[in-house]
């Protein structure tokens, strides 16, 4: 009696996954198409769109710009976010709850709001829009995610280990460097990879804070707005690969830790 219902749910869930992944699979598939057609039949395998992308200075510059923004964002967020995470979980001080809320809240704001707030602030303070203003926007956007990863790891942390280190004569700095940081390092790396993917894909805040130099998502956005160009399939696949490599390596990291 309950058999058919179970398989009904199973089929439904498979369909959900198909709906989620099929559009992307098509983009990846047609990025290797020999002709410019965006539909079946598939005309054979070719790397011509990738060559077109890599030979185009527009795309190459955009890849470099995106990498630059993402790397700087990651470095700053990891340093600032880790310090704040340690402060909020290891020290009991007045206003701790408010500090935590203040650092997490920006994650609930729509990108539109953050984007226009920054744009009008930059315009008013006569800051020229550039990749630096984009980086500031990305920092505000990704910090909550990283802060969440770090604080949840620190809360699951065995405090006894830190106390033992202190009892054995280690100062706060030595305890941090020799005990706390090595133990939370895998979470820091995982958080850094998530931050990289978020920044690499970001388009909402970037749209408002971008100057003369475009990031990869912005180039894709403006290309698609103008016309359908098959090389967008190839550049989209590269964008996808960039963010997925990082998420997949987090998975590897988790598997490694469990063993």
């Amino acid at each position, binding site marked *: 009696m309950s058999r058919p219902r179970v398989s009904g749910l199973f089929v439904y869930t498979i369909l959900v996954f198909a709906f989620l992944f099929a559009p992307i699979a098509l983009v990846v598939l047609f990025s290797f198409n020999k002709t410019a057609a965006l539909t079946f039949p598939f005309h054979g395998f070719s790397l011509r769109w990738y060559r077109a992308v890599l030979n185009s200075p527009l795309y190459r510059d955009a890849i470099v710009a995106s990498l630059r923004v993402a790397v700087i964002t990651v470095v700053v967020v990891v340093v600032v976010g880790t310090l704040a995470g340690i402060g909020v979980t290891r020290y009991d001080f007045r206003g701790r709850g408010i500090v935590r809320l203040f650092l997490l809240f920006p994650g609930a704001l729509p990108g539109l709001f953050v984007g226009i707030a920054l744009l009008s602030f930059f315009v008013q303070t006569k800051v020229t829009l550039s990749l630096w203003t984009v980086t500031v926007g990305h920092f505000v956007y990704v910090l909550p995610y990283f802060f969440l990863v770090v604080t949840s790891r620190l809360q699951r942390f065995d405090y006894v280990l830190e106390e033992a280190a202190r009892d054995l004569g280690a100062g706060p700095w030595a305890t941090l460097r020799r005990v706390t940081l090595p133990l939370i390092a895998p979470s820091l790396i995982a958080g850094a990879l998530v931050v990289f993917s978020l920044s690499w894909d970001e*388009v909402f805040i970037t749209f408002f804070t971008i100057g003369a130099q475009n990031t990869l998502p912005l180039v894709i956005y403006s290309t698609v707005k103008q016309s359908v160009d098959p090389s967008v399939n190839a550049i989209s696949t590269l964008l996808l690969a960039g963010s997925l490599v990082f998420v997949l390596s987090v998975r590897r990291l988790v598997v490694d830790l469990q063993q």
Partner: protein
Amino acid sequence: MTAAAAASGQLGSINLGARRRRRIAVVLLVGPALLVVGGALLVPALNLLVQSFMESSGYGQITYHFTFSNYTAALQDPVYRKVAWHSFGLGALAALICVAAGYPAAYFITFRLRRGRNLALFLVVVSLFTSYLVRLYAWYTILGGHGIVNTALIRLGVVSHPLLFLLFSRTAVLIAFVNVFLPYSVLMLTSSMQNIRPDVLENARDLGAGPLRTFSRIVLPLSMTGAIGAFAYTFILTSGDYITPSLLGGTSSTSLANIVSDEFVALGNRPAGAAISFVMLTVFFLVYLGLTRLDRFKGF
């Protein structure tokens, strides 16, 4: 001064030193983050709030003269109103579809899968991290005049000319919204369903409750937090989105966010855009408040 008093005085100053050192440590640890978020978000947000009460005087120019006119315009302009209903309506519809469509999948992953559960959840997370923009572009090519849907329809003889209304329509925007936000729903629903003990479901079945009754009386109320979170998240991010409507919506579905973006970038009227965006934030906040009241829902 006795020896004891001297000793306690010394102890006090040691304590004071330790406290001061702790305070310095807190400032050094938390300070940078507060400074950056304060400078890069709080100050710009307050600045935006102030601007929303100022007068615009030509492209990009602001006269610092207090006025409510931006808000009265934002609330009374019939064009804004119409677009606002469209945006919030489409967002609510997308959120409703995401939650409703997410439930069966989350139920299956939580209660029917054992070994495959981690893999299924991993796939959901992977789909979260596949670029938003690439997915929009994918739908752009699928629904376009020479896209897969039209080619298939023509080849099957259903239509003789490509259906051009597929792309650049509210339907296209809705499909893309559901595609992008469904994984969040599945994830949030799964995580709140994990708190339901499977034997409770078995008991319900043993006591004669059918699958629908078990769902509406047990699963739904106990996973309400996840449903509320998923609905609020999807509603806020879809009705505040401007990238999807501008790529897939064409002229048929200007969104509120596009109006804000146009006021800022194309028309250079920042006070007007700021006022509309604060009205939007207020609506989001009120919707969220209303939704949290549903948390006490006890089933039909």
